[in-house]
Each structure stands twice: as structure tokens, then as C-alpha cells.
């Protein structure tokens, strides 16, 4: 399994990671090595095996549909990089 620099750029874009040309060169070698390594999984016969969803086969708990959280917007927005009048600021999305 070998990832080309173009494939690495595509994956980095999907993951929203800005990468430099130098990083792309390093990552294509390293990621190819990791994928080669995980390809050892193909040696295991898994025909008919049910994929594990939870080690103890527990299922998701349900709870009554009632309000349990109070609004703490100011508290949570205090740690945001940029807010204005209760809104998170990002660069203009729609021209």
C-alpha cells in the first residue's frame, strides 16, 4: 500500500489539515508504512464473524426526555477565540 503525494493532499483536505509540501512528502512515506502494517489484518479469516459493537454487548441506555442542562452560553463562550453578541465569529462564508 503506497499513498501518493496527491492522495495524502486529498486525505489532509478531507481531514481539514493544512499541510506543507515537506509534510506531504514525509506523511506519504509514514502513512504508507502504517497502512502496510495494518494490512496484516488481511491474514485473519473473519468470514461470518459479527463485528464487535461493544465488549460486553451493552446497548445504549435511554433516559426520560426532560431538560437536564441549563443555558450557560456566556460561560462557554468565554473560552471562544472570537464571539460577538452571543455569536461565534468566523470569516465571511456567504459573499
Amino acid at each position: 500500500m503506497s499513498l501518493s503525494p496527491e492522495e495524502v493532499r486529498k486525505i489532509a483536505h478531507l481531514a481539514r489539515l493544512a499541510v506543507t509540501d515537506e509534510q506531504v512528502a514525509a506523511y506519504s512515506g509514514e502513512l504508507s508504512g502504517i497502512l502496510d502494517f495494518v494490512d496484516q489484518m488481511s491474514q485473519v479469516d473473519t468470514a461470518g464473524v459479527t463485528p464487535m459493537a461493544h465488549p460486553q454487548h451493552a446497548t445504549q441506555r435511554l433516559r426520560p426526555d426532560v431538560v437536564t442542562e441549563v443555558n450557560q452560553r456566556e460561560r462557554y463562550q468565554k473560552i471562544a477565540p472570537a464571539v460577538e453578541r452571543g455569536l461565534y465569529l468566523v470569516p465571511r462564508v456567504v459573499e
Partner: protein
Amino acid sequence: MHDRTIAELARALAAGEVSSVELTRAALDRIEAHDAEYNSFITVTRDAALAEAEAADEARAAGSAGPLAGVPFAHKDIFCTDGVRTSCGSRMLDSFVSPYDATVVRNMRDAGLVMLGKTNMDEFAMGSSNETSWYGPVKNPWDTERVPGGSSGGSAAAIAARLVPGATGTDTGGSIRQPASLCGITGLKPTYGRVSRYGMVAFASSLDQGGPMARTAEDCGLLLGAMAGFDPNDSTSIDRPVDDYRAALEGADVKGMKIGLPEEYFGEGMSAGVRAAVEGAAEQLRELGAETVEISLPHTEASVPTYYVVAPAEASSNLSRFDGVRYGYRCEDPQDVIDLYQRSRGEGFGAEVQRRIMVGTYALSAGYYDAYYLKAQQIRQLISDDFRRAFEQVDVILGPTSPTTAFRLGERSGDPVAMYLSDVYTIAANLAGLPGLSMPAGFADGLPVGVQLVGNYFEEGRLLGVAHRFQQATDHHRQAPAGVSD
């Protein structure tokens, strides 16, 4: 006092021999004097610690203190602490002051334990050497040119250096047990679901589990008793009463116990010193009355590749929350929203975190899901079945924790796959959700060697009991790095 265990400190506090303020101040002074050498703390919370210590002393005077009230300890910097920076070892969260407490933090606060600060760790718990931290590597107190292991390397080093008697850790593929082994301390990864993950920064949600690290099994039992419990805020927390670990230790015995030795754990790759320690531990347990039985865990070899699909896949999903918008690092002068995301993440995450996000993104991308994640979850089931069959024959499983002792700083940091293989013996317990414990079992070339015990679901008490009995008969866990006991 810094050489005392948590159990001893709790007794000294109860007897009025020492106050929590005295203990806390002495520990803070030791951290200040010595931690430059180890870099085991990211944040020290002196004022808050002294206030907590004062409150613990008052509670004790009023007769309302629990048994651990006033004992100092530290949290791995992955647990959210209200009003205190929670960095997760990352530039991404360098400025993140958590607005709430993790359940584990609240539980330990309620028990009256005094937090001295937050310990260093591999970035987002991704690493086996503590070299991926934004705050620089942690040094192993046994040899400061060597790594302490990871990702809970700060906690392990701080305990080995006698800066704190105990600390929390988290373990996704060995991150409590491997550093415990490399630093000569005891660490326990509980059953998946035993300790709440609420407020513990997520790495791989189906594998992550918090647990205690300390010098002795007895102390790990005391800390686990304070940490564990059902939490409605964690959807995978198990609603089941917490065992009385203190009672499990009293009169703990291994007579007649069947201890499984998996043949796959004794093959190539294990260093001679580690092999000798594991064989020595097996012999010691036989002398104490246990019977050792050879068993097989046939899918052991597949566990590391399987893990390096499951963990990155879940990480790529979990870490998508870091977007430079709501909290954490934000790049300078973003041109548009995509640029904001990409540069905030490109600059905020280190190389190992980026590698894992990309491996996970690739494994989950269209057309690859069945070949990677689904296949990995099938192998996970086979690994779990191996353990289920083993526990039909034996009570606990004994093997090495790590294939080698502490390696040199920089030795493996250029080769991700070589680093991943550090966790070959610990990963399977995470994939199967089983409890695992590492305890000191000897030395090789002056460096500590740990051995691992794996138990069936919710048998933390049994693991702690075996380790406690072992520690009553041995003194490996009492050894300290040169100079730290002065």
C-alpha cells in the same frame, strides 16, 4: 513523608501525625525543586491545592472527612478541571481553561483528595513515549536520558520521582500500564465502562478508560474506589455497584488460583530482561500457591494492526470537534472558513496526531470502511473470544507489560510503526474491554520491568488482590530511583 504510600499517608492524616496543608506544601515544594529535571507537570495549581488541603483539614477536624481526604495527588492533563487549563498535551488546547469538571475530577474532589496539578502526556494521549507532548518530553526518573513511556508518562514519572504518591491516567492501548512498567510503579486500566469518560478528552471512545497509578496495588485500589462508578453523563458507563477494593485486598490470596501464561506472549520480540522478570513473577506466584497454566490467545499478533485502524478511525471522528471556532487554538488572520479550519488544525496538532487523523480519515473514507474498520471490529470479536475461552480455564492471565525496558529519548520517534509495537502486549485488553494491571517485577540493567495481569470483566478486585499478595512477598515496588528518597 514523600516516600510514603497513599495508604500510609491516609493513616498519618487520620492519626493527626500530619496535616494535609503540611503534606501539600511539602509536595508542592518538591515539585518546584525537582520537576525541571523530569518535566512531569504541565500545570501546578499551588493556590487551589493549598485551599483544598485547608478544607480537608477542616473537614477532618469536624469529623466529616472520608478516608482519603487531604491526600495529595495529580490528574493527567486529559481530565477537564473547572477553571484550570486542560491542555491534553496539545498546542490546540494550550489556552483551554475548562468550564467544567470531569466526573472523575468531581469524584476525587468529593473524596477530599487534593489536586497538586496536571501531569504531562503525549498529545491527545497518542504516543508510547511522552515525546509527542507540546510541552516537551517527560524524562524517566530512573534514567533521564530515557522515556517514561506514554501516554500517561507525566503521571508515571511524577510517582516514580516521589513528587506525588498517586495520579490518574488513561489507557487506550496501554497508556497506563506501559508507563507504569517503564517507571517501576503500579497502574490499573479498569474494565471498559467502570470509570466515567465524561470530561476526559476523547481519543478513541470505544477503547478509552481512566484508571489509577500509584506505587502499590493497595494505593491503586484506594484511588480506583474514589474514581469509579456509574455516571449517567457517560453513555457507555456501566450501571453496576463499585466493588469494595479495600476488602478485596484484605486477606487476598493466590492459593489455588489458576494463572494463565499465553504462549503468544513469550515469543520473539521480548527482551531477555523482561522475560526473566515475567518468569520470576510466575515462579513467585507459584511459591505463593498459585498454579500456572499454559494457554493460547491465538489472535494476539493481529491486535496491534487492528488497534491502529480502530483507534485512528475513532480519533479522526473525535478530533473533528477542534475547529478553531468554539474553543482552543485559532490560526492568525484566516482568509475564509476552510482556511480557518485547516490552518487552526494544521498548526494546532502535532505530527503524530495528524498522522492518526489521516489514517483514520482514510480508513473511514468511502469504499474503505469494510476493508478497514469493519474488518478490525471483526478481529476485535475474535480477540475477545480468545480471552473468553482463556477465562474458562484460568482466573487471571500473566505476561509482560512491554517488550522492553525504557528506551532512549528519540530512539523510536522517527519510526511510527516501531513505536506502535511498544504496546503489543497491552492493546488486546483494550480491544476486548478487559481490566489490566502492570506491577513492578524486577530490574534489567538498572531499569524497572513491569509484568501485566489481565482479568475478566469487573475483576479489578481480583487483579489488585493478586498484585497486593505479590507485593507483600516482594520489594520491587519499594525500589526508588537514585536520590529521590533523600
